[in-house]
């Protein structure tokens, strides 16, 4: 069997006495969208932070295409082709679309000592990328990010990851606070990313959104991966919810009828 794009084995992460990850094993294949699900505190955010270089792991190994890597910072992760897109923190609202796309990797016009950005080239690439991720509205690349909708901002972040050939794009709650049309837009951007050869990890509280877009579902509970090969085409939302909570149907019904006292 082919080596997966990303393989994390026996990942442990502790914060003092709290074990956030306990021997977690996780993988993502090439050109695959993986839905990562779990209740609050299940460990999915910590797993993503470890993979994006935001927090160091306590023990365990990370392999990219079979080669062991050490991710000490987000820059390290980006250099290894792993891009994480957070809902609100990925972009600079005051900067234009083009300047955000190239932030940190701005093309320079000769002579280099003048350190002058090639803004025409940046705008041209930005225009093409916006079309590629499916933004049909005519938005100039000089538009500040602050005047875009939430869905359009996600599209810009996805476009940036695609342009810089990130092998893996991690989307953390990309559909939070978005309307129905915008959510569908973001899901279509994610599909575009996969179709152009990128792998994605999709984290969302709304399981219905996950079902619409992912190829495989992975579930975490109490710091461990408890299911890693759920095919969304062969299962139901209710079944996945049972795996997430670790409860039987009857226990879930009881919990719902008891209201928020037990699980609020």
């Amino acid at each position: 069997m082919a080596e997966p794009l990303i393989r994390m084995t026996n990942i442990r992460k502790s914060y003092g006495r709290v074990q956030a990850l306990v021997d977690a094993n996780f993988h993502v294949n090439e050109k695959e969208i993986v839905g990562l699900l779990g209740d609050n505190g299940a460990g999915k955010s910590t797993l993503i932070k470890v993979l994006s270089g935001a927090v160091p792991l306590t023990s365990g190994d990370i392999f990219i295409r079979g080669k062991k890597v050490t991710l000490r910072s987000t820059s390290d992760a980006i250099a290894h082709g792993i891009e994480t897109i957070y809902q609100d923190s990925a972009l600079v609202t005051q900067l234009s679309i083009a300047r955000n796309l190239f932030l940190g990797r701005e093309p320079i016009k000769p002579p280099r000592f003048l350190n002058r950005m090639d803004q025409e080239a940046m705008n041209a690439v930005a225009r093409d990328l916006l079309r590629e991720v499916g933004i049909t509205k005519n938005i100039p690349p000089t538009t500040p990010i602050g005047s875009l909708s939430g869905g359009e901002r996600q599209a810009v972040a996805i476009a940036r990851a695609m342009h810089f050939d990130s092998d893996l794009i991690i989307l953390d709650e990309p559909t939070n606070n978005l309307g129905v049309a915008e959510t569908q837009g973001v899901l279509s951007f994610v599909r575009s990313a996969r179709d152009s050869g990128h792998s994605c990890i999709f984290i969302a509280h709304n399981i219905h959104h996950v079902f619409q877009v992912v190829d495989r579902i992975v579930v975490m509970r109490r710091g461990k991966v408890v299911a890693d090969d759920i095919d969304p085409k062969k299962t139901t939302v209710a079944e996945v919810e049972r795996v997430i909570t670790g409860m039987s149907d009857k226990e879930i019904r009881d919990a719902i009828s008891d209201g928020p006292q037990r699980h609020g």
Partner: protein
Amino acid sequence: MENRSYIQRLIARPEFGPLVLLIVELVVFWGINPDFLSPQNISNILAFTVELGLIALAMTLLMTSGEFDLSVGSLFGFSPVLMWTLYNSGVTSLEMGLLIALIVAALIGLVNGWFVTQLKIPSFLVTLGMLLVVRGTALFITDGFPQRTWSAEGSWLANILVGDFYVGPFRIYASLFWFIGAAIALGYVLTQSRTGNWIQAAGGNPNAARARGVNVNRVKVGLFILSAVMASLAGVISSLRTSAANPNSGTGYELEVIAMVVIGGTALTGGRGTIIGTVLGILILRVMRNGIVLIGVPGLAYNIFIGAIILGMMALHSWLERRHQAGT
């Protein structure tokens, strides 16, 4: 969005409000007292404008990166005191004294930047502490008295920094060219260069900038050094022009400089800055200071007008920002 007319886009620019205010000031002061636009008065306004202006230009970049520097006024007083103390005591030449004063200022900027970026202390507190240290040092080494009088006439250093000449009836100081050069250079850095993109990102969303590999700390430390060196240079230019080095000079300049920058449209919270706006902000405050005296308003009432201008311009910028965010 592309269909917005040229006029609408012009009005939405942060520099538009300050430009209108400056024109109104010029018209009102000239209308009340025609001497306001006399060559002698214009020459006077320009001479001092340049010195505070140099500090405001550097402060624009620093504030765009989300920080500010309260120690600039004390450096404005300290650097000439240090330079002339070294010169008067025969330790160094005047030129070497200037070089040492600039290096000391750069080190002070480096310390400010280190405290802010490494110890994560807000720049307000760090630079307030540095203000007291620097001002205290200037007072201590001079016993609180101005340096003894001297003349730098004939020195090539004085000629290139503050040498003056007449263009028709206007008396122009060389420092005006330093100011224009600095405005063009820093305007270029902020709007055209890669460093400018990093400065705006560092102020707008430092976490996003770091995630893209931008060394936010290095950017900020560099700007603290720039701010300190420009304040030092402005102080030396002022002392050469007035032939005086008073350890108390520059008191209160930090707030006036910050006012110039925010009136011009640079965001106090960082992420957005404009050098053209700052040049307008500098002119607005200097013209106001000069104009109200010429039309007979007591000089002590100056701060009332400045406060009102700051409040009015903040309201205007806030309104423009909300319109901008709403995409209208």
